[in-house]
């Protein structure tokens, strides 16, 4: 067993883990962060994408122990102060998800992409999310959503579209 100390979505954890445990299984099975999903076993699909120390990583390609001392943000930690992240909001607004399985990884990758390139053109968005597979949407609305979010996130843009996170869920 190896010890890992890590901050995930703002909470500090210290756990003994098998050295071989992947970060994604640590998140899902030890911390109950089941919002981060596993879609493949060859690091092709990107469903498990999270941020580690501010960079997007496929959490199936990182050992839990490699995250030791680090800060992890998952899909469950990006809504702040009860408000959805603009990328989350854009995914809903542009109908950028259907079954929802690629969505957490896709959103995390999109946030990373917009961090590097705040105003990407369509080609840049498509290249930037190339490592995340979606089988439902044909990507078109995902691309639109990311470009839409980019406009909302520009300095000076109003954040009026942000909505309170509904705890009980459901219809809006």
């Amino acid at each position, binding site marked *: 067993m190896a010890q890992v100390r890590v901050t995930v979505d703002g909470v500090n954890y210290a756990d003994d883990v098998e050295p071989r445990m992947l970060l994604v299984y640590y998140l899902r099975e030890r911390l109950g962060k089941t919002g981060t999903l596993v*879609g*493949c076993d*060859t690091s092709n699909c990107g469903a498990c994408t999270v941020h580690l120390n501010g960079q997007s990583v496929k959490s199936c390609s990182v050992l839990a122990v490699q995250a030791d001392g680090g800060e992890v943000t998952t899909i469950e930690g990006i809504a702040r102060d009860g408000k959805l992240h603009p990328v989350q909001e854009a995914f809903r607004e542009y109908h950028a998800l*259907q079954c929802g399985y690629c969505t957490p990884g896709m959103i995390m990758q999109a946030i990373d992409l917009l961090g590097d390139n705040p105003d990407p053109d369509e080609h840049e968005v498509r290249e930037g999310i190339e490592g995340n597979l979606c089988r439902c949407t044909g990507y078109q609305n995902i691309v639109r959503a990311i470009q839409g979010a980019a406009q909302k996130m520009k300095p000076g843009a109003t954040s009026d579209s942000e909505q309170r996170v509904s705890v009980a*869920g459901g*219809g809006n």
Partner: protein
Amino acid sequence: MTTTAEPTTLEVGKARVRKEDQRLITGRSRYTDAITPPGTLHIHVVRSPLAHATITGIDSTAAKAAPGVIGVYTAADLGIEAVGLPAAWPITPDWKAPQRPVLASSTVHFAGEGVAVVVARSAAEARDAGDLVEVDYDPLEPVLDMEAALAEGATLVHPDLGTNENATWVFDSGEAGTGSSATDAVAAAEADPDAIVVKRRFRQQRLIPAFMEPRSCVVDPTGEQLTIYAATQIPHILRTMTTVTLGVPESKVRVIAPDVGGGFGGKIAVLPEEMLCVTLAQKLGRPVKWTETRSESLLAAHHGRDQIQDITVAARKDGTVLALDVKLLADMGAYLGLVGAGVPILGAFMFNAIYKFPAYRFSCTNVFTTKTLTDAYRGAGRPEATFAIERIMDELAVELDRDPMELRQQNWIKHEEFPFTTVCGLTYDTGNYEQATEHAVATFDYAGLRREQEQRRASNDPVQLGIGISTFTEMCGLAPSRVLGSLSYGAGGWEAASIRMLATGKVEVITGTSPHGQGLETAFSQIVADQLGVPFEDVEILHGDTQISPKGLDTYGSRSLSVGGPAIMMAAQKVIAKAKKFAAHLLEASEDDIEFANGQFTVRGTDKGKAIQEIAFAAFMAHDYPDDVEPSLDSDAVYDPDNFSFPHGTHLAAIEVDTETGRVNLRKYVCVDDIGVVVNPLIAEGQVHGGLAQGIAQALFEEANYDEQGTLVNGTFVDYTLPSAADLPSFDTDTVSTPSTSNPLGVKGVGEAGTIASTPAIVNGVLDALRHFGVTDIQMPTTSQRVWRAIQEAKGRSTQETPVDTHSPGAGLGSIDPNNPPQEIVTPEEGQ
């Protein structure tokens, strides 16, 4: 009681953002793998690495001694050797159906078939121990090629059946009385100097549905009922089939399909692993869980397509079609899936498509091979049919030197001819091919692109331009139960719904469909909001749990909206009929004088009225209600459609082919679909986008290949190349509408349209770019290498020098080039 806002405008037709999304964008999802009841044990299935072999010994001593292992079991250990998984569509009375075991006992019939199961405390321990199970095999000859499998003396996949043929299913319009004899018509055309006969062979490659959520199930035996959580499209069918398969009383089984991460037909199945989990949960008295890896999924989950299509069309030289003859071989794989045998038949009535063929013959022989079984994949039979007819219409146009669109127009059913009964005996209720085509052609700039094509040809531009057309139709809304009965299908085609009016005026709607990404919670809410005059937000859609939704036939075949929708509408109308009696009583008026609109019951000619929410509350309180009714508004309905619905559309693709590298670039894609009434344009457009991506992927990217030993060579996402965002363009999609008259909502179905339509549009476009070189066919997927080879061969050059593998995006780690085994080089001659 709660008073809620009055609805202002009609919901149907509004581009509502989805109700489903809030949970999914915040990670508050519940896919099956997230469910782990206390005490759960995990299984790992030990699978055969060989396609065809006799099992000579299994030694699990080391595995049983491994840490955390509860047990290692074979079929014999579990007493399930005689259990056979269901094949529910006996397409002919004399079909040959093998037993499909839960675990193979003596012989394995495909690489990936389970031979033993390890149960352990954790999934990782189960998998570790699985590697310690020693299985000895005596290899047998694999059976891989359909035509060879049918030849005299072929190795038999199932020797007890005496043949590799499952069944041959025939439709002949001459015999059916729905048209004349295609055989006679083709013979007559061959002898007629004013007629032409065009024959082609097309290959529908094997595809993998590749839903993003791997399959998973958890069986919890700790209650009075056995609870099965499953990543399935078909919770209701799974419940019944668990009873049929294992004998557990249906009343003791509850199936829950929680969030399901896509299916595309790939989750219409009763899985050996599900039945293993049931058996083990009963045996061990603890919850048992299975979640597959992606590699397991690609290897062992059912595949789709895989047909050889021999297509003959006869026409007069003026272009008028005379007859269509279709001969198919369909690869079933090693066993029959739940409805796999019938998948080609779902296409049988669609080869004639939108054209007025007077004579039609269809014959399909299903063949067993030692490969993963095939079953439904998005479109199921209809993409295969649409590909064949839309490809052969282009071939006919080439032979007659006609514009392919003009030839289609000459032969299609005119708008004023609807309703039109086809040569298959189906009655197309509505359609307007002219309208969709006119709209698409204008958006696409068909004439302008044809001019550009001419210029590029004239200047011998290294990048040639092709225009691909697909004017498709499909049959949706499975299905009129009596029609299914006539086809020996193992179930009906109705759908059930219930509406519960809660005391506070909120509405619970229970549907027997099982949405898994389609946005039906939103679309159904819009329908109910209009029917009952309640706010969209007040409607809750419940589904996917057989205790909550006890009756249903689930989601596939673009049926949920067109069959499930009318069931909900009928239940709503029953609610209103009941509420009217309450309203009449409470308003002291005759029921005949009560009018209902926008959620209000009013007395004709007065300003007296009550809202439906007030009536619901009155029914709940039941202090004052009419003598002759029960104190409830709740209503159930079952809708059995009279007919299918027939979406159609015109799809146009502008394809650039780099003739020096063979690279295909989809420059522009325009489609105009007629899907009848559109409940939610945002969701409908999303369905078209996703459908297009899958259909285009068949044309350009995807293929499941087996090597000569029968091993799947693209068994990971490294090698099975789903398109990424960088591989696809944005599509220009639009709709026109001639409402269906087959169902009261006027809807037609949209889930499969894009997939069905797009594949031939792409391939027609690739060929159109290269026809002038003499290229006549390229097998799918039309990878750079295949395109390059076709160009070289058409120019009479040797292609022995294999270019660096460019077979599809994302590939490169595979050790062999699966798309181009040497024996599969396509020459123009073979292509015909």
